[in-house]
């Protein structure tokens, strides 16, 4: 399936969260039906989100408080950390919980 080109660069009036949400919507629209973790994580829009760096971490953590999300696949790359025990890898609920504990320890709440 062809992918949509990534949108225009962030404008001076667009906040980081607005940019993040706009990229998130595009990423989900183009990958929500996929099972391949390599295609999901390798999608250009998610790569763009990851390139936004630590600015997006609070937004991802806030989403994880609401429900388990695949942000748990992007957070290690952004933060350089990985609090998920080997035994819990692939369990998105447990991975989410591990990241929420990490968030507390790192002063995100």
């Amino acid at each position: 399936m062809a992918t949509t080109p990534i949108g225009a660069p962030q404008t001076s009036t667009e906040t980081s969260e607005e940019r993040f949400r706009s990229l998130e919507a595009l990423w989900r629209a183009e990958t929500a039906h996929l099972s391949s973790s390599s295609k999901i994580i390798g999608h250009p829009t998610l790569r763009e989100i990851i390139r936004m760096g630590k600015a997006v971490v609070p937004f991802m953590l806030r989403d994880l408080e609401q429900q388990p999300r695949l942000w748990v696949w992007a957070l290690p790359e952004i933060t350089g950390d990985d609090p998920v025990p080997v035994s819990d890898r692939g369990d998105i609920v447990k991975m989410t919980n591990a990241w929420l504990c990490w968030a507390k320890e790192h002063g995100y709440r």
Partner: protein
Amino acid sequence: MERLEALFPRLRGTAYRITSSASDVYNCIAWAAGDTEHWWWPGDPARTYWPLGAPRLETLAAFRDAFAILGYVVCEQADLEQGFEKIALFADSDGTPTHAARQLGDGTWTSKLGMSEDIQHALENLVGTVYGSIAQILKRALPSSPPEPR
């Protein structure tokens, strides 16, 4: 519905139905395997679950091996067969697996669509540009029922 039918045009005008809400917790391979707690994929082991003993390769052979661990063997027909449950593996034109569906007791199929919903559908409904074609059918014997008490 329109969103799904745009992705899978063969759903249009059929009796498919959405049977769950969307979830990032499990995917089609997990759902086919009867697991709603993991995201199954042979990619990065830091991110996904894959059965121990099956190669972590995005090949049909690796997917067959993963389901073989659950007791599935290759079979020729997708038709409903008394005493067996079946799984269909989809693959793209390069032979790379894209999707799995599980047959239900009435001969229809159930699929989890990535992070989206589960649907009940006819097998051919998902053939197309997104998931490619049906590449392999697998089956395993259903547990036998205990004998009726006399």
